[in-house]
């Protein structure tokens, strides 16, 4: 079983139909464990109960970048190997990645309100995540702007790869810009010196969210394949009518 075997959409549909229930079940179980653990995690001595936002916020932020990575690999698949499912994977991942990014921004801003006293701060991390969100939206707009999916796929693949090259540069320059304008006004958790009571639920939640992404992504890919079949059937019907 190699990646090339999946090139047949029918085989992919059959395989994913078998895998999907197990993935969904694993996601639900891990999410339940993670949510239970984070609900019973001790309050932070400084932040109180608001520290629990972290268990939602950090996995979302991690996935916002991970999904762009998945899309970049899929774009390589489109441009280099011409894998037929690569552009389906790239297209299906974009809205999911945008949602994770949006949730990271939203939970971050809700966390920021009690902690920093403001919903929005032009902090380096927040700013670069916002730019990432804008790039997701631009990519989705590109997918929606062109009717022919294969034509849109190649354009989106080029843009995704350019974005992947540019994201570290943007991150670096926003960091630089931020230290220039407002030196270290933002309070942060103690970095990697996270206590075990927080670390274990956080890891469980991170794995659960990653599984959630895989599940949603597979389901979205199935939908996209079916949508394309419907589209080609409709076009066949229309051309038959015209003839």
């Amino acid at each position, binding site marked *: 079983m190699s990646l090339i075997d999946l090139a047949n959409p029918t085989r992919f549909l059959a395989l994913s139909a078998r895998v999907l229930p197990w993935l969904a079940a694993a996601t639900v179980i891990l999410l339940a464990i993670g949510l239970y653990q984070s609900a019973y995690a001790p309050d932070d001595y400084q932040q109180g109960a608001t520290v629990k936002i972290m268990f939602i916020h950090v996995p979302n932020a991690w996935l916002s970048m991970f999904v762009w990575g998945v899309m970049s690999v899929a774009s390589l698949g489109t*441009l280099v190997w011409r894998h037929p499912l690569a552009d389906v994977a790239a297209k299906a991942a974009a809205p999911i990645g945008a949602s994770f990014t949006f949730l990271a921004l939203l939970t971050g801003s809700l966390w920021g309100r009690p902690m920093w006293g403001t919903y929005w701060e032009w902090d380096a991390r927040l700013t670069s995540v916002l*730019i990432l969100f*804008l*790039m997701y*939206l*631009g*990519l989705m*707009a*590109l997918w929606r*702007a*062109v009717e022919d999916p294969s*034509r*849109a796929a*190649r*354009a989106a*693949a*080029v*843009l995704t*790869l*350019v*974005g992947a*090259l*540019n994201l570290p*540069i*943007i991150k*670096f*320059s*926003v960091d*630089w*810009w931020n230290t*220039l304008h407002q030196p270290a006004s933002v309070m942060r958790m103690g970095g990697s010196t996270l206590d075990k009571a927080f670390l274990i639920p956080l890891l469980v939640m991170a794995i659960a969210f990653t599984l959630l992404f895989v599940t949603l992504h597979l389901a979205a890919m199935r939908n996209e394949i079916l949508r394309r079949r419907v589209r080609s059937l409709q076009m066949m019907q229309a051309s038959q009518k015209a003839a």
Partner: protein
Amino acid sequence: MTALAALIRRDLRIALRVGGGALIGVLFFLTVVVLMPFAVGPDLALLTRLGPAILWLGALLASLLTLDRLFMADHEDGSLDLITMSRTPLELACAAKALAHWLAAGLPLVVATPVLGLLLNLDMVATAAVALTLLAGTPALTFTGMIGAALAVTLHRGGLLMAVLVLPLSIPVLIFGVAASQAAITGPLSFGAPFSILCALSLVSLVIGPFAAAASLKHGLD
């Protein structure tokens, strides 16, 4: 080499003659800068403070708007197909086209900056700093914007969609361009650090831009 030189000469000639529209970018730049005082008020001290930012934003928008036509006109009259089929590597041809475009549309923006600096009450040092950073930074805008132009021609879509796609990519250039100008005017940071990063960004886009544009042209044209 002669093919590339011929391409540059041709593009320059087309851009500078009637219907080329190379200098419309400068006119747009002037209009944006003139609009600013109406938005923020005719306070000269405030305009001095905002001056570099206004000039950079104006130049960014002007170079973005002129880029729309970089490949479109050639696609319409069929010469883009000849360029893609010719023996010259498409990456080099894209680089040559972008260079010609920068000479015709980017360089005039730099030349116009001192005049516009007068309108914004910038002193000599500030004007020179902004002009110098624009000289170093506008190639980066042209070469990253070229990716958007190539996508625009393969998708038959231009305008707003391309602006939405390309503008986030130009954020680093904007940050370091304005930072270097501000450093030269007010300090306390040295001018050298942001300016060299700005030059580095231009050099990186000089490499990435032609490859990405050529890739999207190769895969997208039919």
